[in-house]
């Protein structure tokens, strides 16, 4: 505290004065108790007159009061000076403070302005950044969209291509199937032609064989018909030869039957598919 006081002499002086004053007050305090001094500000001097009986008293009083008033005025004066001084000091102080405050305010203002500027700049920067970001975003979005579109297009293209490929594959498959079918049909046709040709060969061979073994009886005449039904086993062996339509001439019928039996085993067909278990020989002499 002392340090503080030393640091501020005005405050020390003020403090001493206060103490003195306080002691003084204590000294005179009994009188004062009746008439509380007006501890007011400078300017107002109280005019007191003792009106009543106790005129000595009053006069004493009045003298003391006058002294008092005088001291008081002195004091008041001193106080007023002090007050003025203090007030000046206070004003200076205040002014200083005000200046400081102003400067501070200015500083603050500048700071604020700077801050504002900074803020604005920041805002601007941010806005710019935002704009940039937005642009970038948009760009990105556009790119994304583009990419997506591209992707979609690519996908569509791929799909189209895949579809195309699939269709082509299908077409090829179909074509292949068709060709295979045609080939099969052609082969079937070919086989049929072959079989037909082989069949006529086979028939010719059978015909030849039986003709060679047919001892045509002299009674054979054009117009005679004898049908011999034959049954074969796969080796060509005739297991049955039976006249199913008689010529009316038993010898002729028997000659036909014998011709077939004698031809056993009949030649195998050139293709096993042509083998027939049963068929007919029709003996029909010409001329």
């Amino acid at each position: 505290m002392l340090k503080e006081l030393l640091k501020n002499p005005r405050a020390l002086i003020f403090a001493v004065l206060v103490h003195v004053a306080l002691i003084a007050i204590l000294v005179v305090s009994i009188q004062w108790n009746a008439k509380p001094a007006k501890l007011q500000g400078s300017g107002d001097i109280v005019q007191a007159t003792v009106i009543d009986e106790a005129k000595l008293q009053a006069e004493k009083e009045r003298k003391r009061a006058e002294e008092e008033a005088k001291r008081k005025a002195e004091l008041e004066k001193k106080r007023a000076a002090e007050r003025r001084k203090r007030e000046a000091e206070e004003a200076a102080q205040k002014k200083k403070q005000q200046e400081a405050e102003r400067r501070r305010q200015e500083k603050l203002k500048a700071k604020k302005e700077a801050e504002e500027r900074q803020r604005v700049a920041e805002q601007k920067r941010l806005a710019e950044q935002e704009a940039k970001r937005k642009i970038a975003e948009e760009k990105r979005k556009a790119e994304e969209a583009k990419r997506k579109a591209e992707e979609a297009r690519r996908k569509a293209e791929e799909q189209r291509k895949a579809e195309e490929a699939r269709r082509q594959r299908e077409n090829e498959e179909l074509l292949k199937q068709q060709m295979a079918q045609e080939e099969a049909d052609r082969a079937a046709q070919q086989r049929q032609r072959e079989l037909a040709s082989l069949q006529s060969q086979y028939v010719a061979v059978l015909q030849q064989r039986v003709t060679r073994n047919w001892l045509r009886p002299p009674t054979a005449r054009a117009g005679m018909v004898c049908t011999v039904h034959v049954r074969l086993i796969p080796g060509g062996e005739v297991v049955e030869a039976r006249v199913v339509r008689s010529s009316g001439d038993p010898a002729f019928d028997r000659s036909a039957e014998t011709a077939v039996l004698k031809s056993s085993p009949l030649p195998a067909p050139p293709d096993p598919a042509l083998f027939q278990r049963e068929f007919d020989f029709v003996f029909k002499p010409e001329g």
Partner: protein
Amino acid sequence: MSLLQRLCVVWGLGLLLAAGNAGAALTIEITQGVEGAVPVAVVPFGPGGVSLPVDVAEVIAADLRRSGRFAPVARDDLIARPYEASQVNFRDWRLVKADNLIIGKVTPFGAGYTVQFQLFDVFRGVQLSGYSMRSGAADLRRTAHQIADMIYETLTGEPGAFATRIAYITVTDVAAGKRRYSLEVADSDGYNPRPVVQSMQPLMSPSWSPDGTRLAYVSFETKRPRIYTQELHSGKRQLIASFSGINGAPAWSPDGSKMALVLSKDGNPEIYVMDLASKRLRRLTDSLGIDTEPAWSPDGRTIIFTSDRGGTPQIYRMSADGGRAARLTFEGAYNARASFSADGHTIAMVHGENNRYRIAVLDLQNGAMQVLTDGRLDESPSFAPNGRMIIYATEERNRGVLAAVSVDGRVKQRLSAREGDAREPVWAPIRQ
């Protein structure tokens, strides 16, 4: 490939399949065959060990061979000698390609024999015929011929003609300038000849009665030709015609009531028909040429004969009641001595061309003439009663011999003959 084509394929395959499935859908026509004899195996009749006067199987085989329809397997080629059915293995006989197999057995029975035979169809493996019969010791040949007939009929459907007889004339030189003429009857294979009538003068033109019991013939025994008929059994004979000039070429009508003959009593030789009961004559021909050698159609309505009215001898046909004659033969410079087959469809004749006389047949239905023989002087053709063979006379080393030819000309065979010339054979009808 169009749908239609596909359908066609399917249809075609279907047809094939149908053909495969439908059993007898396939038919194979046989229009040609082999002209030839049916191979048969005639196994010597068993059981052997018995000495027989006749080789029955051999007689049967010869008959069958002579018919032209059958070709008996040579004995050396017979693969086995079964004489009973139980001994037969058809496989053997199929190997030798015999269509038929004939086996038999001859066992003594009393003074004669029991003859049994069986005829088999080799490829079917079945018996077609089989009989057992009695035979006198002297009749074995005849029994064999009968068996041959049964076999023949079974196999061909036509009656056989082996157990028939033939008549013919033989001429034998007995001394310088002297010849003996004999009308003989023999089995159809020429065996068992026996004379019916003999003469030192010519005998000619034998003709069978339709019932086979009598023969008509021309005899010069009185130095002039006369026509006689003679019963074979009794030898009893009857003079039929003894007109001035030629009395020749008798021919019995199929019903036996009439006889066609050639007479020249009215100038040149003409055809007449005599009613045998009344001896009444009816002249059929009236031409400036020679009309001779009449023959009856099997139905008795028609007579064919030889005439040179056209310049050369040719065959003509006319109604047995008379009327116009139509010429039948146009091929060759000489056609004569015609006779009918039993069915009336064919006539056989002597066909002369370039100084060769051969036997020919004319198919009356289609007019086709076919020469059957290749001799130089073949003559006197006569059909077997079944129409399948023709017997005729031919010349062999300047000697007349009898021969038979199948009607298709495939088989010709000389008949056995004794010494001398044989001529004018005529085949007897099937014995009633």
